[in-house]
Structures are given as structure tokens and as C-alpha cells.
């Protein structure tokens, strides 16, 4: 596959940027989220943290696991509850269909993943509305903030293609 130079340059930039654990405060998160932003969280701990900050994500993708250990689901307001099956290290068609569905259902939506949500930030970045913000955790490091735009969608698509 031949990539245009412009896209190659885009790919050199990371998918998101890391807010270190010590810098994860409500104020720092709000610096990256404007009013009315479609906020998406991937991961139980990140979802819980945002809810604790008073920011209930409109889409929450959780698997009831934290650092591979079973945990209770985050509290928080949820109107629509969806389920999907996604084994570790995979992105299943079921997950992709469920994420697509989540964007047209009444918010806030929570997707409970039977398996692991580790990689679901990739199809979420591909399918999320322009200017939405995806937050996901990086163990022992912090929270990665992904601002969705065409560049990110291109990158997500290429990453998904590289898996097949």
C-alpha cells in the first residue's frame, strides 16, 4: 500500500497525548475539553475518574477489569446499556457494530465488554463524531487524550488495516 507523504507525516504523530498521572486533575482535563464536547472513555478506571470529576462520559466502554483484575463497574448515570464480546488483543465485528450502535442511541451509553476493551479505542476513534474526545488509561503512566478529527480517523483506519 502506498501512503501519500502527508499521511506518513500524520502517522508519525501519536494517536493522542499523555497526561501524566501526577497531572490528571479536573482542571487539566477541562483544558482539553470544550463545553458540549462528546466525551468518551475507554476503561473502567478512566471512566470512574471522569465521573468523580463530575464529567459523565456520553460513551463509556468498560470491561469490569482494572490491571487485569476483576472490579466492580463504575457508578454514574447510564441511559443505554449495551454488551459486546471482545477477547483480549482483538477487535471483533461485534464490538465495532456495538460502538456504531452506541453513537445513535440515547446517551449516556455504556458498553460492557465481555473480554477486554484494551484495543477498542481504535474503532472508537474511527467511528466517533468530529471533535469528540476519547480518554483512555495507560497503566502507571496516566491518561491518553485523543481529539477526534480526520487525521486521527485515517490513522485509526490504517492501524485497523494493519491487524488484518
Amino acid at each position, binding site marked *: 500500500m502506498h501512503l501519500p507523504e502527508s499521511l506518513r507525516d500524520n502517522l508519525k504523530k501519536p494517536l493522542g497525548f499523555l497526561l501524566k498521572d501526577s497531572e490528571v486533575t479536573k482542571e487539566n482535563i477541562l483544558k482539553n475539553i470544550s463545553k458540549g464536547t462528546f466525551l468518551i472513555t475507554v476503561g473502567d478506571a478512566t471512566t470512574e475518574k471522569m465521573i468523580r470529576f463530575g464529567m459523565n462520559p456520553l460513551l463509556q466502554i468498560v470491561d469490569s477489569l482494572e*490491571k487485569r483484575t476483576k472490579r466492580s463497574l463504575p457508578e454514574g448515570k447510564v441511559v443505554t446499556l449495551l454488551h459486546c464480546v471482545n477477547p483480549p*488483543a482483538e477487535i471483533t465485528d461485534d464490538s465495532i457494530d456495538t460502538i456504531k450502535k452506541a453513537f445513535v442511541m440515547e446517551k449516556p451509553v455504556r458498553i460492557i465488554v465481555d473480554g477486554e476493551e*484494551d484495543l477498542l479505542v*481504535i474503532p472508537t476513534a474511527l467511528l466517533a463524531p468530529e471533535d469528540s474526545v476519547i480518554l483512555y488509561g495507560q*497503566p502507571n503512566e496516566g491518561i491518553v487524550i485523543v481529539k477526534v478529527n480526520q487525521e486521527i480517523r485515517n490513522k485509526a483506519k490504517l492501524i485497523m488495516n494493519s491487524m488484518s
Partner: protein
Amino acid sequence: MKILVVDDNSSITELLAMYFKKKGHDCITTNDGKEGLSLCMNNKFDAIILDLAMPEFTGKDFLDSLIQEGKIEQQKIIVLTAMPLGNVKIEDHRHGICEVLPKPCKLDVLMKTLESLTVAA
């Protein structure tokens, strides 16, 4: 684990970095074979994931350089290749190479291979 990924395909390095970091590992990536070699010479990695078919400085060049520097034995290298595995001639580099996996490689297979290297260490 501290993992070095050397692959000219940015999509692959980004996917692997995201995945390994999500799993709590330290992952450094580069899309340039020469840079990968420099990283390898100046740092200690628990494992190196190396693409064979890279432009200019290939995976084979990377392995040859490690041999010349006498550093191949110290490495645990997993080679990724899109070539049919039967066509991959890397016998000269056997000592540093722990595994040859086809591309695209399932992430869980790669993870299990990495974990088996750590257990074996």
C-alpha cells in the same frame, strides 16, 4: 518488560505501542532500522520485535550489525515477516532470534511469545 519495536510501518508500531503500554509494559518504537540499532546498542531491552522488510536499512542489516558488534547473543529478538516463513533465511542469526512470526501477527500470539521469552530468561 522493556520492549523495542522496529518496523517501518507506523500503523504497526503505533498499534503495538498502544497495546503493550496498555498492558503495563515499557515500549519504545522506531520506524527506522538504523535508529533501532542505535537504540538497541545504547539500551537494554527485554525483547526486540523486528520487521525484516524495511527500506534502506533492513531487518537483516540490523541483525548483521548486531553480529558485527558481537551483541547478537545478548538479545531476545522476535522477527516479524510478511514473507512465507519457509522463505525466511536467517540461520546465520539464529542465536539472537528467538522466534519468527508471520505478519500480520495476532497480538495475543505475540504477547504469549514475549511472555515465554521472559519466563525463559
